[in-house]
């Protein structure tokens, strides 16, 4: 629905909203209204929101803006590669880094963090690959040192996912609710000691060089997703359980990442023993299914998923499934039949 609006939004949004002309002022009002709707949905204040045009840039701003040379950066082994890149850079600059291990279920125990001034902790709401959720009220909420800063990675979070009470910065990706690529939302909590880590020349906290049509389309997509979220989530959970049940009953030697109770049902990662993912993906495509994988699938990509490796889940023979609201039981059942056939065929070879 948001995609259909894009042409209209591009036609209406070419003006500079900072100018004094009437149409520019109208656009500025439209942007402010969209920002308010966004803030309400994300349960933060409008003044805390910044719009960025690149997700990687968003990670850098959100996390590096909390760090200084004396900071101890604490993040988990299942965090996104952007976090590892920032951690490497922090170490090169003389900073300290601690990596928290994951258990087999993908859960992180933040109670291991020793209280210290200048801790900067990364907390991930939902893992992009496996869908494993970290609780915002578990061990992360017990980090009570007033000097500890917390970056909440909400980039794969479902709509309505709660921020930890002690968050300092947060980042959302519009694609996680069906919005376009190229827009991310950075939140900087009022009163938090955050410093823009990039050179900047004006009084703006963060550069406002983002695509206005993409921003407006992201907010429309969020509103659309909000409308049917509860019904969609219930249906998707049933599909997720159906796949898990089928695999457990019909395909031996399968390793499913994460428990259904602790995972976002939109995502599912399964690895199959004695199987090359590349071959399985090619054969599934011939049957009409485009499936992603966390395995090292090609000669150019020798490293398997660091998330699966950190959890201790099998990294070869891996498939990643994404459940969308328009999927039906019939489509999922057809896919499962094809999956079982292809796995049996590949294992015979």
């Amino acid at each position, binding site marked *: 629905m948001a995609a259909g609006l894009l042409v209209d939004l591009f036609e209406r949004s070419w003006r500079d909203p900072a100018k004094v002309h009437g149409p520019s002022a109208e656009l500025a009002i439209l942007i402010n209204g969209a920002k308010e709707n966004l803030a309400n949905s994300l349960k933060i204040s409008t003044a805390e929101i910044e719009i960025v045009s690149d997700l990687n840039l968003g990670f850098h701003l959100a996390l590096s803006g909390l760090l200084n040379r004396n900071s101890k950066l604490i993040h988990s082994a299942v965090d996104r590669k952007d976090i590892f890149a920032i951690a490497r850079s922090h170490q090169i600059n003389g900073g300290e880094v601690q990596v928290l291990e994951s258990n087999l279920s993908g859960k992180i125990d933040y109670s291991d963090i020793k209280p210290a001034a200048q801790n900067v902790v990364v907390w991930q709401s939902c893992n992009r690959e496996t869908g494993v959720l970290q609780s915002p009220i578990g061990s992360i909420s017990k980090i009570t040192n007033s000097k500890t800063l917390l970056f909440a990675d909400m980039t794969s979070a479902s709509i309505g996912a709660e921020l930890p009470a002690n968050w300092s910065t947060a980042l959302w990706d519009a694609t996680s609710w069906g919005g376009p690529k190229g827009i991310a939302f950075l939140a900087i909590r009022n009163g938090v000691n955050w410093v823009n880590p990039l050179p900047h020349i004006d009084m703006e906290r963060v550069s406002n060089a983002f695509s206005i049509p993409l921003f407006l389309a992201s907010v429309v997509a969020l509103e659309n997703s909000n409308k049917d979220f509860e019904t969609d989530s219930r249906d998707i959970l049933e599909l997720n359980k159906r796949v898990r049940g089928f695999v457990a009953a019909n395909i031996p*030697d399968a*390793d499913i990442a994460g428990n259904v109770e602790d995972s976002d049902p939109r995502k599912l990662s399964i*690895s199959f*023993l*004695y*199987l*090359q993912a590349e071959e399985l993906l090619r054969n599934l495509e011939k049957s009409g299914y485009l499936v992603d994988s966390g395995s*090292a699938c090609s000669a150019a990509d*020798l*490293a*398997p998923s660091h998330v*699966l*490796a950190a959890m*201790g*889940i*099998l*990294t*070869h*023979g891996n498939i990643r499934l994404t459940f969308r609201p328009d999927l039906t039981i019939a489509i999922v059942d057809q896919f499962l039949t094809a999956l079982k056939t292809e796995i049996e065929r590949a294992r015979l070879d």
Partner: protein
Amino acid sequence: MRCPLPIIESAKALKTLMTDDQISLQSDDPATWVDLSAWARMSGNEVLQIDKTNFLITKKR
């Protein structure tokens, strides 16, 4: 030899052995230790990492 071949070949070799027999595996694939550990958990066998590229597998089932 890249994963999953070290696991597949080890599992094949293990079938011909008795309980507590051992296999020495040499592999420089970066995924070998992670996948060997996962395979041991799933299959009920035991594995030990000697160094970066050498592993010891003990048949338990």
